């Protein structure tokens, strides 16, 4: 879709393909790149010589344009209906040629200045005159009152239409006074008017905010024509990312933009959307792109909170604080060149978001949107259902047996006889196959948003409020957010304008799910025996006498799921304010000065208890076991910047230059108190804690920057852009804290430069290339050793020690990313086919490695500037429009990304570094000569022939080996849009391939007897296919549970490595534009849409899990699957009103 989007913008300008209405697409008629040439001031050759037979009208028009210098404005749909024409004229006037061309066609034209406007010839006078037919006349003017020529006027729901003449006048017949006239002109807001009792309707059109040419918002918010850009910058269709279903709209980017890899994490509705552009530029955990909203960076780092013996809870990211209804435009700057002006923050690309304003809304504009989503858990489990709960081939014989073996399916064969179970009752010994749907519930999400806007020539405002109420599929877990967005614009004087954007959001996370062990609901649900119905524990999770947890397995760290859900309570509340104030002074028509102050600030209050009576808790010396922790986080970033911009044209040459500076001041602090053991039972406060552990931490840094860019253009087909940015860092040694980041890029419009040589089927050809260097930041205080005192004394003896386990390095530099990119854009066959490809090579040098060093050095790691890595690949978009009829279009967009990475260098003599490990099995490493993200784990001990060695029938642990990379090489999507009259159907299929995962789930299922792979050897023991140390085949049988438990003890990973590739039917959306139905009411627009997310897993290779079920936000955990909540299929319904 996005491919079509791009094409459409080139063709029609941003305004048009508002896909709500097919009519609009067809009616608004123009081609842009021609129009945009109207500024060229060369003389018009009046005479044309042309001799072509049976060619398309488009070809003829192009030729006339080339010879005469006139621009053409026309309705592509109308032209496509025309049959082939033959023309033979010599030294004729333009009028003569056109008359010749159009003589048998239902087309007419008018000439105004250097523009020729072609439109469908006015309908033949209607023969049958209706009784009530009304003739409406009027004048269309622009906001300065100047008459507008060539404005399209149509009667909604009919074929009737006309255009205005040179005086802006028109005349049209309508059938009744309910008729709605639609006035449209390229570059202007379309206006609809109900005829009513009037016969004279004068209309003034206002310019739309977008310009006619495709405009891309580039770094620092500077708008530039797409054609002039020498790198890949993709505008994202805001309608498509605003489909309901995901609470975090970042997830909707998945599969839509080439080069962008999105993971919707399995961490619940309030979770992070993990976005990576062009691979992973560093070995660190967070390679998220910079998010810039209205020119000001928004901290998008995921927020997390700790859990004992478990993964951290994912509490969401910065994108979450944005209401997608507020987004006017979104641009993805993928490469270093695109992002170069962001210098040290640009290594992972930039997502630039501009929010809506109230401009051009003469009356009070009201928009309202409401959606409801139901999310249903998906069950990928396919366990063995032959042998039930129990251990060592024995079924539970008592309640305490049951409560000790609840995590094992190594019992006897199912026979339906009653057995004691974990709830203290007897149940038949039968399989229970529906654990996922029995325990998890349907998640809900209700989102409402409303926006008010108004704007006139002096200024505008827009105020929006949105509210989301969502429930997770885990019980007692929900999420709520409210977002307020305000945009104010005011023209203080003719030259001085001011603008204010402010966004305030409150989001609350209650009991977000997490993986790992203790208190992890997904872990317990997944690991319970295959004959347990999780609901049995609902009323018996708490011991009625002690009030403590009723354990269900001898691994006390696997908490009873209902105990976790109802007793272990976590709460997080985030208040965030971000926004900016801008002053812009137009010093001259070619020169402006802008100053801006932007703020991003949030407060996060987090609290979590460790409930008294949790089975895994240590007994206490005094009081009650359990605990509580409370955490207050503050983040603040202040950016002050200025920008001076100038642009001027000298003949064929144009210059556009900007110069600016930024001062960033960032700080965060954290005040936390955690207490263990309580004086008073069930009172979870820090005051009630016996062992108190307070902590305060602070970190702050400043970066000053100066930057500039210079754009040169020649004849509107050759463009050159150079930028430079210098950053000064407070985090670095003052002797070497200044770094310069240059970039250069260029684009060449082949189709313009050699338009006379271009065959008629080529519409647009652009070549582009660029080189840039950008950087990555270092952390504050990493240059010095610090000491910290312990919070409590030891029997009155105070103590303190070296703070942290990272050895400081005073000589750090920021890392550098050097990227070369080349690309081309093609539009062919009258826009029916378009293609955009980019090739890039991105080298990261001076990579700051948080290197593991031997613990014997006194520290576990240090940071050094030695790493080098490379990402290179191809991004491509192919858009085909197989059908383009008046009432039906079908557009298919295919995007495909191929990215390969290679670790080029680590610290001297170091072939490998470990960057992360999973809860149970496997770890992530970076290895020289291998792609990023090596998944490693232990293999069996093998002999020289590769056969597995067994001792007494049991395999042994062999070497650690690399199984592959956890990062996909291939990512792509197929996006189909079908438009029929007012209906639109959108379907997306996407895939990722070429990567592996290590599955904690799999490993757990195997060792606990749930996995089908654990069936062999249940009777008589496992005779493993291995050899004795002397090479003879193994003949010793090992009892099944003892055998499979060895996978745990010896941490053998080999069996739990999977191909992580998948093809998924991601989305199906049906949208109906109901504006026609309500055209005689006070509602301007209305549309309804229904959406299904995660329609179908078409192909995957993993047992028992969804290969996308990853819950860790960090890149140090890539490909390490750990047990997380099930992925969901969601069904949404939404309605949109505009008043």
């Amino acid at each position, binding site marked *: 879709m996005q491919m079509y989007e791009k094409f459409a913008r080139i063709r029609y300008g941003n305004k048009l393909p508002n896909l709500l209405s097919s009519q609009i697409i067809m009616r608004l008629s123009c081609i842009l790149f021609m129009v945009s040439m109207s500024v060229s001031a060369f003389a018009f050759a009046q005479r044309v010589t042309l001799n072509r037979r049976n060619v398309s009208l488009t070809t003829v028009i192009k030729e006339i344009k080339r010879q005469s210098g006139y621009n053409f404005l026309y309705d592509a749909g109308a032209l496509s209906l025309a049959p082939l024409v033959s023309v033979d004229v010599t030294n004729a006037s333009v009028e003569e040629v056109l008359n010749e061309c159009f003589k048998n066609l239902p087309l007419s034209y008018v000439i105004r200045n250097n523009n020729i406007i072609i439109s469908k010839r006015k309908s033949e006078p209607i023969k049958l005159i209706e009784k009530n037919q009304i003739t409406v006349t009027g004048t269309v003017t622009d906001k300065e009152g100047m008459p507008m020529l060539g404005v399209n006027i149509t009667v909604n729901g009919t074929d009737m239409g006309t255009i205005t003449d040179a005086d802006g006048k028109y005349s049209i017949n309508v059938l009744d006074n309910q008729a709605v006239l639609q006035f449209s002109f390229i570059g202007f807001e379309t206006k609809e008017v109900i005829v009513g009792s009037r016969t004279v309707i004068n209309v003034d059109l206002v310019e739309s905010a977008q310009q006619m040419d495709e405009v891309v918002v580039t770094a620092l918010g500077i708008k530039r024509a797409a054609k002039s850009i020498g790198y890949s910058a993709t505008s994202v269709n805001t309608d498509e990312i605003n489909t309901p279903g995901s609470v975090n709209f970042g997830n909707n980017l998945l599969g839509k933009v080439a080069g962008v890899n999105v993971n919707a994490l399995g961490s619940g509705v309030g979770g992070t959307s993990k976005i990576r552009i062009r691979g992973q530029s560093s070995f660190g955990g967070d390679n998220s792109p910079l998010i810039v909203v209205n020119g000001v960076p928004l901290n998008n780092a995921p927020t997390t909170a700790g859990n004992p013996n478990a993964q951290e809870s994912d509490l969401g990211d910065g994108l979450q604080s944005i209401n997608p209804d507020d987004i006017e435009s979104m641009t993805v700057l993928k490469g270093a060149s695109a992002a170069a002006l962001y210098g040290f923050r640009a290594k992972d690309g930039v997502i630039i978001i501009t929010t809506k304003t109230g401009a051009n809304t003469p009356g009070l504009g009201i928009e309202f949107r409401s959606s409801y989503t139901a999310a249903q858990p998906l069950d990928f489990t396919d366990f063995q259902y032959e042998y039930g709960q129990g251990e*060592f081939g024995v079924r539970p014989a008592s309640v*305490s*047996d049951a*409560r*000790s073996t609840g995590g094992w399916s190594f019992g006897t064969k199912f026979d339906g006889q009653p057995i004691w179970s974990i709830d203290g009752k007897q149940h038949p010994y039968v399989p229970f196959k529906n654990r996922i749907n029995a325990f998890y519930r349907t998640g809900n999400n209700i989102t409402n948003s409303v926006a008010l806007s108004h704007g006139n020539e002096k200024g505008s405002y827009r105020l929006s409020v949105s509210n989301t109420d969502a429930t997770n599929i885990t019980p007692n877990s929900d999420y709520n957010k409210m977002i307020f967005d305000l945009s104010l614009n005011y023209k203080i004087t003719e030259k001085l304008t001011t603008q204010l954007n402010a966004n305030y959001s409150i989001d609350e996370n209650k009991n977000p799910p997490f993986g790992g062990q*203790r208190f992890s609901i997904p872990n317990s649900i997944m690991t319970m025996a295959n004959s347990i119905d999780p609901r049995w524990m609902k009323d018996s999770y708490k011991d009625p006498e002690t009030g*403590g*947890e*009723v*354990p269900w397995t*001898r691994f006390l*760290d696997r908490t009873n799921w209902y105990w976790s859900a109802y007793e272990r309570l976590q709460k997080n509340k985030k208040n965030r304010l971000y926004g900016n104030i801008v002053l812009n*002074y137009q*010093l*001259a028509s070619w020169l402006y000065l802008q100053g801006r102050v932007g703020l991003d600030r949030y407060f996060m209050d987090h609290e979590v208890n460790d409930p008294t009576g*949790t*089975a895994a*808790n*240590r*007994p206490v*010396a*005094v009081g009650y076991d359990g605990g509580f922790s409370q955490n207050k986080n503050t983040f603040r970033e202040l950016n002050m910047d*200025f920008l001076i911009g100038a642009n001027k044209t000298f003949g064929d040459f144009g210059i556009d230059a900007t110069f600016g*500076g930024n001062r960033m001041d960032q700080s965060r602090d954290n005040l936390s108190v955690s207490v263990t053991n309580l004086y008073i039972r069930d009172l979870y406060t820090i005051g009630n804690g*016996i062992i108190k552990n307070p902590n305060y*931490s*602070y970190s702050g840094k*400043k970066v000053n920057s100066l930057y500039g860019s210079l754009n040169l253009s020649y004849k509107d087909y050759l463009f050159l852009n150079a930028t430079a940015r210098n950053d000064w860092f407070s985090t*670095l040694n003052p002797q070497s804290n200044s770094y310069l980041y240059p970039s250069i890029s260029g684009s060449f419009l082949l189709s313009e430069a050699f338009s006379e040589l271009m065959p008629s089927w080529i519409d647009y050809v652009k070549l582009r290339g660029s080189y840039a260097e950008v950087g990555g930041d270092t952390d*504050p205080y990493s240059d*010095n050793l610090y*000491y*910290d*005192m312990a919070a409590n004394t*030891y*029997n009155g003896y*105070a103590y*303190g*020690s*070296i703070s942290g*386990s990272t*050895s400081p390095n005073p000589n750090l530099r920021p890392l550098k990313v050097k990227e070369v990119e080349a690309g081309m854009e093609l539009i062919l066959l009258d826009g029916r086919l378009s293609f955009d490809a980019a090739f890039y090579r991105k080298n990261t040098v001076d990579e700051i490695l948080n290197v593991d*060093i*031997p*613990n*014997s*050095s*006194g520290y*576990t790691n240090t940071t050094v500037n030695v790493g080098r890595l490379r990402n290179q690949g191809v991004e491509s978009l192919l858009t085909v429009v197989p059908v383009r009829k008046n009432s039906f279009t079908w557009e298919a967009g295919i995007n495909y990304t191929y990215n390969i990475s290679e670790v080029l260098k680590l610290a001297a*003599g170091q072939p*490998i570094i470990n960057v992360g490990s999973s809860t149970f099995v496997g770890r992530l490493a970076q290895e020289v000569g291998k792609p990023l993200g090596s998944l490693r784990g232990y293999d069996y001990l093998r002999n020289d022939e590769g056969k597995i060695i067994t001792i007494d029938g*049991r395999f*042994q642990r062999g070497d*650690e080996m690399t199984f592959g990379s956890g990062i996909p090489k291939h990512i792509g999507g197929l996006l189909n849009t079908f438009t029929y009259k007012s209906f639109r159907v959108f379907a997306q299929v996407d895939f990722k391939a070429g990567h592996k995962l290590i599955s904690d789930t799999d490993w757990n299922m195997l*060792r606990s007897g749930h996995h089908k792979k654990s069936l062999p050897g249940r009777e008589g023991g496992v005779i493993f296919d291995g050899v004795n*140390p002397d090479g003879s085949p193994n003949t010793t049988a090992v009892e099944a549970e*003892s055998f499979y*438990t060895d996978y*745990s*003890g010896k941490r053998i990973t080999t069996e739990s490595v999977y191909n992580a590739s998948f093809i998924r039917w991601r989305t199906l959306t049906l949208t109906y534009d109901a504006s026609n139905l309500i055209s005689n009411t006070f509602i301007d627009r209305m549309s309804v849409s229904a959406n299904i997310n995660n329609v179908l897993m078409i192909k995957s290779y993993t047992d028992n899990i969804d290969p996308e079920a990853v819950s860790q936000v960090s890149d140090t955990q890539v490909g390490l699957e750990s047990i997380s909540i099930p992925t969901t299929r969601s069904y949404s319904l939404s309605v949109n009103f505009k008043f």
Partner: protein
Amino acid sequence: MKRKYIIITSLLLLINLYGCEKDFVETNTNPVLATSIDPVYQLVASQIIGIDIVHYEGAIVQQAQNLLGGAEEGGNRNTNVDGFGSNTFNSLYGNQIQNLVDIVNTVKDDPGKTNLHSMARILKAYCFQLLVDRYGDVPYSEAGLAYLAGITFPKYDDQEGIYEDIAKELKEAVDVLDASKDDVSGEMYFGGDISKWKKFGNSLLLRVGMRYTKIDENKAKSLVGIATDPARGGVMSSNEDNVVLKSNSIQLNPANGFITGSVRNIWHIGEPFIDFLKNNNDPRLQYIAALYPNSPSGSDPGVPNTNPADQIGCPYGYTDVNVVNAPKYPGKNGSTFKYSQFNRSTIGRIDAWLYYVTYAQTQLLLAEARQRGYITTGTVKDYYEAGIKGHMTQLDFWTSVSGGDSPITQEELDTYLQQPEIAFNPSSGLKQINEQYWVACLMIWHEAYANFRRSGYPQLKPLNFPGEDPYVSIATGGDGFIHRLTYPLKEWSINTTNVQEAADRMGGDNMGTRIFWDN
């Protein structure tokens, strides 16, 4: 004019923004952490040593036992599990050695901190002895220097050389200690009492010296001589001299999580240990062992049965499956086997004190030194009995009250000393002494483990566990016991060259390789 004015203003603004950035240094100084602290605080932090020694040492010396494989296995099955094997390595280097090396670096040339310097050297020597005894060759001369000297990949030093240096350090440090010099009353073991520090240093030196009995008796004798030289302050002479971490309800015992934590239901007391105590009517048994009725439900274990006659130790060489075939198999209570567990109200309290180096151990070492003729004062019997008495009268150990006096009476002690196997008999002196040393190292299993390898006592039966590590297995050349623990896998994966060199020097990084004093 107006335009010029604006441009000038903005230029001034620029200069203001970028011209003076003196505050960068200030910005990059952490306002809530210190760039230096009194090294005494670091010394106290280093005194809190908490390492997991149950999974290997406790199981190898057959005092602690769990029957499970998987996540909790290690010494109970003679298998090599990195997580438990590398615990001591990572913990000591990452906490104690990191800070002690830093303290030594800070105060080594400070004439006003000679006592503090000596204390740091003694504690450092102790930590390195723990490391050598467990792993053999370890980084020593280049350890802990990542920040101070930029040594991020420390080389491994020869274990014998390290031992030489430890002995030298202990001797020198004790000799430098001087009550008239700097006051270090902020340290936690003895509140700065110099005479006690001397005894601590000398007792450690005695321990170091006695390690040589198997390989170099002359060396042993000479070191023991230096350690016990009364002119140098002597060794520990009462329980007052013990090096003990006095845990409390806020600072919990850092090393006994296995008794009280989430795996508390799987840990039992080993059969040989229960039998030794039971067969000799040991008055300590009732405070060590308990049978809990309520396992595994929740945090309330129920009222324990501490009757010595009912205690039954968990046998070795069995799994949780085939243990049903073991003689005297007592059955299960839920998921928990009905074998004795550590008493959670006494030595297993969450706030139980943690003894590192004790008077009891020291007296028993003296007994052996006297028996071997390294020293000439006192009698073996007196040292032996003083050692037993010392252990029985340790504070806190036998009571449910933190720091409580021992409930064991003189009468119980006297009766015990007359037990046929206990009453001192010179012909089986080494056996008796070292069996008592084994008991006196309850909960300090790294020392029990070292002494077991050195002395060969108690005479334990090898596990012969199916599928045990081939370097340990008798069938493949071992003697059935783990003789050392292997280096952390992390060292292998990133400090490869240095580890390889050490492994080659020692004859392989495996559990069958012996520490130099164990040959």
